[in-house]
């Protein structure tokens, strides 16, 4: 008896993990259903008529919750891990069953607007209630068990299960990106017509896609290493040829991209491009110099409004062309960067953030006010801004504006790269790391900070000028604080101080939500959740700076905590 009780207690306490994690899963699935995501997402199929995105969402959350349960209880033994994931799977679906029963007795809809009969039907897989509930419960268990099993499995079996499933999922989610892109490629269009239906993949397409991708990944795992080694062992000159070839391909791709993508995707690309420009500018201020600027949108607005005032025929003050207005807009940006930089020179951290946020808002409110309306157009904004043109070529459609933005991005990337490994870039980074010591190393804080503000503001104004010409009009509502926050987030999600990180961040936070436009209602919800999860799991960003990444994979040496604050007073 005595001997047995601790072990049975041990089993019970280790089942607690499954129960606890399962409870989180239960809340998650109910939440997903009640906020309407399941219903909205079931409009779109991953595989046509087989599985919708709504169901996929629930399955995925069940899968991840069960995976977590297994992960947390693996130390207690494999069978317990499996049991725990099974329990959490059952709990995740069990809560939905509770919801259905509750909904059958009480009119939940008077409070929760999405608790509709359609939702219940979806959760019951369209069956009548008894079979549906059993099916739902069963599916929960299966998902939990499957997830636990996959966690325990290793090697190629796991790979061969996850890779095809994952690729089908990605193909299904990105169908709006892939289908028109593939369709533009002549012979490939037949393939795309065969893989995709109007809504989701076809069954045969999904099978073929899964199988071919697993074969591909198998081949790569056998041959890939030797291929890589082969490239590495090439002689210097040959490797140079490879690099040049790669570079040329990239340039070619960038040049033809809008023609491959079509109108809608090009439009998305231009929006992403504008954010990349903004991100690269703010990357200098936040990523390099460590000055958290939440009023960054002000310079974007100043660039756009300067262009508008100088070129708009509606106002008729001036009749500049885009090209002659552009340098003035950038100069105005730089000038205001310095001007708004001076008052905040001595502020640090959160104070700086809130003061700059204040500046951004002040500028937006001033622009919006009736007081300045004769000059700035008030809430109606300024219209009739001419497009940029070279000779008779006009940057009017997204596919053409793309080149304007591309040129801007290339220029800004070039400048950022040059600055980074220079006296100025090092001064910025030293200031970010320790302002006092940086000053004691001979860095003039005033000019260095102002230079960072000015450079960032200049890039931002460039982005604003292109934005004004792209839209043909400017409104104060386009320049709210959300833009500043978005840009800060994309820098940090991409990886602070990393130039490729800014691009990855812009594609992830701006591009992806644009692609899933029909779910616009849930865009910011997912965005918020993604930010939290990202910071919890991968705080260094999606594409951190090369050095930091390398160090993360090295065995860290003896670390020294530098946060003690001795020495403030004399010793």
């Amino acid at each position: 008896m005595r001997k047995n009780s601790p072990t049975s207690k041990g089993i019970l306490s280790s089942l607690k993990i499954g129960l606890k994690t399962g409870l989180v899963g239960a809340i998650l699935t109910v939440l997903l259903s009640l906020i309407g995501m399941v219903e909205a997402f079931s409009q779109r199929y991953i595989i046509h008529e087989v599985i919708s995105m709504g169901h996929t969402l629930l399955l995925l959350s069940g899968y991840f919750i069960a995976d977590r349960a297994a992960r947390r209880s693996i130390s207690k033994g494999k069978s317990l891990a499996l049991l725990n994931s099974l329990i959490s799977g059952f709990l995740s679906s069990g809560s939905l069953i509770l919801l259905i029963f509750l909904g059958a007795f009480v009119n939940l809809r008077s409070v929760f607007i999405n608790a509709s009969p359609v939702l219940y039907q979806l959760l019951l897989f369209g069956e009548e209630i008894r079979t549906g509930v059993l099916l739902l419960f069963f599916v929960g268990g299966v998902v939990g068990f499957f997830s636990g099993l996959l966690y325990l499995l290793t090697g190629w079996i796991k790979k061969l299960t996850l890779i095809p499933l994952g690729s089908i999922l990605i193909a299904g989610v990105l169908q709006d990106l892939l289908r028109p892109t593939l369709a533009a490629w002549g012979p490939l269009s037949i393939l795309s017509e065969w893989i995709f239906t109007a809504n989701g993949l076809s069954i045969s397409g999904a099978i073929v896609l899964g199988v071919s991708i697993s074969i591909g990944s198998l081949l790569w795992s056998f041959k890939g290493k030797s291929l890589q080694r082969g490239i590495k062992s090439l002689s210097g000159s040959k490797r140079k040829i490879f690099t040049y070839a790669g570079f040329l391909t990239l340039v070619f791709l960038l040049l033809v991209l809008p023609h491959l993508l079509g109108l809608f995707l090009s439009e998305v690309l231009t929006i992403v491009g504008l954010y990349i420009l903004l991100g690269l500018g703010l990357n200098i201020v936040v990523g390099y110099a460590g000055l958290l600027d939440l009023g960054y949108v002000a310079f974007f607005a100043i660039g756009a409004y300067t262009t508008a005032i100088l070129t708009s025929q509606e106002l008729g003050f001036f009749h500049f062309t885009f090209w002659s207005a552009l340098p003035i807009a950038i100069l105005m940006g730089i000038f205001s960067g310095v001007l708004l930089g001076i008052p905040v020179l001595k502020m640090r951290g959160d104070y700086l953030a809130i003061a700059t946020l204040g500046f951004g808002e002040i500028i937006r409110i001033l622009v919006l006010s009736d007081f300045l309306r004769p000059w700035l157009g008030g809430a109606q904004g300024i219209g009739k801004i001419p497009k940029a043109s070279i000779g008779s070529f006009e940057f009017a459609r997204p596919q053409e504006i793309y080149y304007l933005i591309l040129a801007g991005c290339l220029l800004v990337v070039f400048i950022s790269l040059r600055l980074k490994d220079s006296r100025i870039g090092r001064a910025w980074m030293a200031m970010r790391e320790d302002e006092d010591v940086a000053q004691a190393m001979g860095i003039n804080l005033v000019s260095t900070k102002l230079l960072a503000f000015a450079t960032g503001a200049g890039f931002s104004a460039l982005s604003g000028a292109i934005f004004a010409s792209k839209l043909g009009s400017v409104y104060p509502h386009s320049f709210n604080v959300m833009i500043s926050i978005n840009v800060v987030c994309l820098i940090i999600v991409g990886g602070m101080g990393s130039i490729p990180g800014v691009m990855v961040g812009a594609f992830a936070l701006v591009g992806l939500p644009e692609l899933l436009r029909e779910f616009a209602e849930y865009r910011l919800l997912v965005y918020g959740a993604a930010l939290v999860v990202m910071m919890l799991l991968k705080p260094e960003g999606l594409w951190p700076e090369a050095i930091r990444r390398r160090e993360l994979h090295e065995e860290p040496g003896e670390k020294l905590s530098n946060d003690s604050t001795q020495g403030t007073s004399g010793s």
Partner: protein
Amino acid sequence: MAILIAKKVTKQFGGLVALDRLDLEIQERSIHSIIGPNGAGKTTFFNCVTGFYRPEEGEILFNNHSLVGLPPDKIVRLGISRTYQNIRLFPNLTAMENVLVGLHGHLKSNFFGIVIKSSFTKREEAEAAEEARNLLRFVNLSGKGDFLAKNLPYGDQRKLEIARALASKPKLLLLDEPTAGMNPKETQDMMDFIQRLRDELGITILLIEHQMKVVMGISETVTVLDYGEKIAEGSPGEIQRNPRVIEAYLGRGSAEEVAAA
């Protein structure tokens, strides 16, 4: 000839007098130590010299140039550099970058030169990199230039901090407890190294140190501070025999207390 002269320097924090009319002269090419119990005002004096604090009263002259009121970045350009009691490197920069930041004041490239990579910038950057590598070699850190400062072992961090301070080509180097946390072997190496700095580079060294072995072993002059006041000054031998110093360190009548306990 005195390279640094402090006259009646007073620094207060609220009611606390951290430095009380301190007079101090540091001879050129000497190794000068400041010792004293915790809270005696040693680091405060460093902070006053390097411009972190502004003394309420008094004058600090460096080669006859007044330092009071100058910001730290101007002071380092005059030729005073320092290290910190609790190492303050730039943790997320590489060792090489840390040293290059130290060279900042001697580089002249401007924004446009950097963006177009003018021949001047190119040459300057190459020279700076060469100089930084030499400095890393000088402190025995060659080959570790690509490590992030925060990932270096403790002893290397101390050395890197000195290399960074040397990069600004100081005439006067202020070292704040350079041997703190070191074992006897490392301490001996550091002592030899400090002497090399003076003998080979001709840098005047002002040292805050707690280990008496180090103080007595390498310094020519020792100044003892207590409650912000100078209570003694002289050669190591004189200081060891000075009754006021013994009292400051052990307290009046402390010998009896120790016996009673």
